[in-house]
């Protein structure tokens, strides 16, 4: 009996191998970094739908936690063991480019753009040397989220300017039960993003259009000084917080407002059974301020290994294009993290798009409409003029923005001194694209 089973399995393996060898079934593999089970399930839903439409292509997803993405990418490129494509953020995309591991995807982006219409601001972060190196799949805008009940109780309107924000934070702070705002000052991505939520409206530019470092400016100093002032109303210990602590404390009602992604709506609806969550655009200085915020597009880059076989490459391109179909993109955005992963094509943002039929999106319709509007005002630090300086990958990786804020908030340095240090550090890492 055992022998018979072994013989049957061997035969199946032989047939499958033959089919693969003769190109009848192509298996493509991709890495993504969304470890929670429900996100993996969302990807699998898209994969299953794709495999139904393309029965000769098999797709396999592999999860690489964000913390390991850079080291695994470097190791895979050096060892020649890369998957076919990988999800990334702009600095990981640059990292893979610097290692010589990826191919331009300009043609594919143009194909998708013709069908679904990319928001051009979200392509800037992936364009350099005359090509596009990543296909944006979704983006992540930050707004000022708040608990309406707390503001109503205090008789405060949602703030629109920095002055109103400071006043609101002060009024809402009742230690130790509640704090008006949540800000951090650690060497992590959250702090960098929060920094940009104030620097962008102030008018900061890390680089000019020629890639020269222009970080040390009155606009930056103003933003850092304001951050320091506002930090007084943030909970003790928040300097060292990352995502989990911020979300837990906000959900527990200890924080009234915080610059953040809109993704807490899922937790509010499913776990807290509450709709006490709203948002306004990031406040700006009342004088010489800009209606700007942070957006963080997530894209896909294609490794050189996939390009060795034209059939394989076409399979990869087919899957990437499939992900941008409105019903599929809805699964990857609203199905994974409603409010955090926001679509970035005109087709997805149109009123008749399936995105707006998702239950969580519907439950927080005003919040989600705001998030979509804010994408158009969104920028990412160092990419204000596109990719003009390849050093931005190192600047982000080394948490220079986070360290500037840490020097001021934790170290007690003056904003001028901290920003001057940031300028010097950025100049050391600067590599303008010529």
């Amino acid at each position, binding site marked *: 009996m055992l022998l018979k089973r072994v013989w049957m399995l061997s035969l199946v393996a032989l047939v499958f191998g033959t089919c693969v060898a003769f190109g009848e079934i192509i298996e493509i593999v991709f890495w993504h970094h969304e470890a929670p089970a429900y996100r993996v399930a969302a990807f699998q839903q898209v994969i299953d739908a794709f495999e139904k439409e393309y029965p000769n292509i098999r797709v396999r997803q592999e999860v690489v936690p964000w913390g390991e993405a850079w080291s695994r990418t470097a190791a895979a490129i050096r060892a020649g063991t890369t998957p076919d494509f990988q999800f990334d953020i702009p600095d990981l995309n640059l990292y893979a480019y610097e290692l010589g591991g990826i191919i331009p995807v300009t043609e594919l982006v143009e194909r998708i753009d013709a069908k679904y219409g990319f928001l051009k601001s979200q392509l800037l972060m992936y364009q350099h040397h005359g090509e596009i190196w990543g296909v944006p799949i979704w983006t992540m805008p930050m707004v000022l989220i708040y608990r309406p009940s707390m503001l109503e109780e205090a008789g405060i309107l949602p703030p629109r300017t920095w002055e109103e924000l400071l006043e609101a934070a002060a009024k809402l702070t009742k230690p130790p039960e509640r704090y008006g705002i949540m800000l951090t000052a650690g060497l992590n991505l959250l702090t960098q993003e929060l920094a940009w939520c104030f620097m962008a409206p102030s008018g900061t530019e890390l680089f000019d259009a020629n890639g020269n470092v222009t970080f040390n400016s009155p606009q930056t100093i103003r933003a850092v000084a304001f951050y320091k002032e506002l930090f007084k109303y943030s909970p003790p210990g928040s300097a060292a917080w990352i995502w989990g*602590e911020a979300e837990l404390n906000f959900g527990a009602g200890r924080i009234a407002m915080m610059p953040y992604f809109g993704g807490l709506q899922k937790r509010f609806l499913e776990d807290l059974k509450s709709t006490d969550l709203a948002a306004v655009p990031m406040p700006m200085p009342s004088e010489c301020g800009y209606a700007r915020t942070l957006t963080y597009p997530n894209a896909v880059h294609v490794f050189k290994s996939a390009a060795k076989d034209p059939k394989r490459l076409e399979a990869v391109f087919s899957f990437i294009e499939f992900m941008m179909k409105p019903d599929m993109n809805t699964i990857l955005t609203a199905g994974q993290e409603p409010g955090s992963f926001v679509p970035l094509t005109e087709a997805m943002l149109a009123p008749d798009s399936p995105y707006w039929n998702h239950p969580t999106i519907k439950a927080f319709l005003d919040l989600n409409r705001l998030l979509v509007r804010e994408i158009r005002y969104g920028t990412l630090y160092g990419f204000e003029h596109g990719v003009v300086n390849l050093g931005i990958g*190192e600047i982000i990786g080394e948490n220079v923005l986070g360290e500037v804020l840490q020097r001021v908030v934790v170290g007690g340095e003056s904003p001028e001194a901290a920003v001057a240090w940031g300028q010097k550090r950025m100049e050391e890492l600067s590599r303008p694209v010529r």
Partner: protein
Amino acid sequence: MRGKIGFVLIAPVLVLILFSYGYPLFDLIRSSFFVTRAGVNEYVGLFNYQKVLSSSIFYQAVVNSLRWTGLSLAIQLSVPLILALALNQRFWGNSLARVLMLVPWIMPTVVVAIMLRWLLEPNVGLINHFLRSLGIVRTPIDFLGSTQSAFLTLVCANSWQFLPFGTLLILAGLQTIPHDVLEAAWVDGAGVWQRFRYIIFPLLGPVIGFVFFLAFVWNFNTLGLIWLTTQGGPLNTTLTLPVLIYRRAFRGFAMGEAAAMGSLASVALMIVGVFYFKYLWKRPT
């Protein structure tokens, strides 16, 4: 003939060491002479070494590493010795205590780091809750966010993880001390301290020496706990050399520079190791 047979028997292990340590070390040193940009490896000679040796942050990381190692050794040699002496006694629950003592060692570093962040969180963490309930502190302590406390907090957490290993090695060493020698000393009127000072401690010397060296190398190379909690902050107070190397390699795109630092650290540790085992460590007799 016996020597040849011995060499043949350890040859497979030597080959394994050559491939798993020798080749990576060779590649590390080789990488330190290159800069990689857009996939192109450019030979730059000693440029990476010059950059590293003229960087103030490198020296800050080295000093932090030596402080980290020194403080950790002080804890990781004294506490395991005390624990091993205690566990070497007969008492009710001795077996259970030995098993429970292993818990820190078997917990993955990621779990320890996440637990630490939550336990020490100033607002909702258990540690601050207990300290305030007992009236020991009035305002919460920001263990991981303060430049005064972050370093010591992580040293203690790291040492807590190492304790079982050191304790087990020393306990094994204690088990080899002949009972009749200790009994004879007791019969002759030697007290607890005298038995420890003149019999137990000298006989434990080689074991403690071995634990010292292992602890020295492992602590010097600690990365996971620091990276997962403070990432070298706040304000580089917990920035040790391994953290700086990791940051430059995998966040800063500077593989060559990181390889230069790694090479310097590897060579330094090897020199320390050779010197230690040749001149300082006493082989057990």
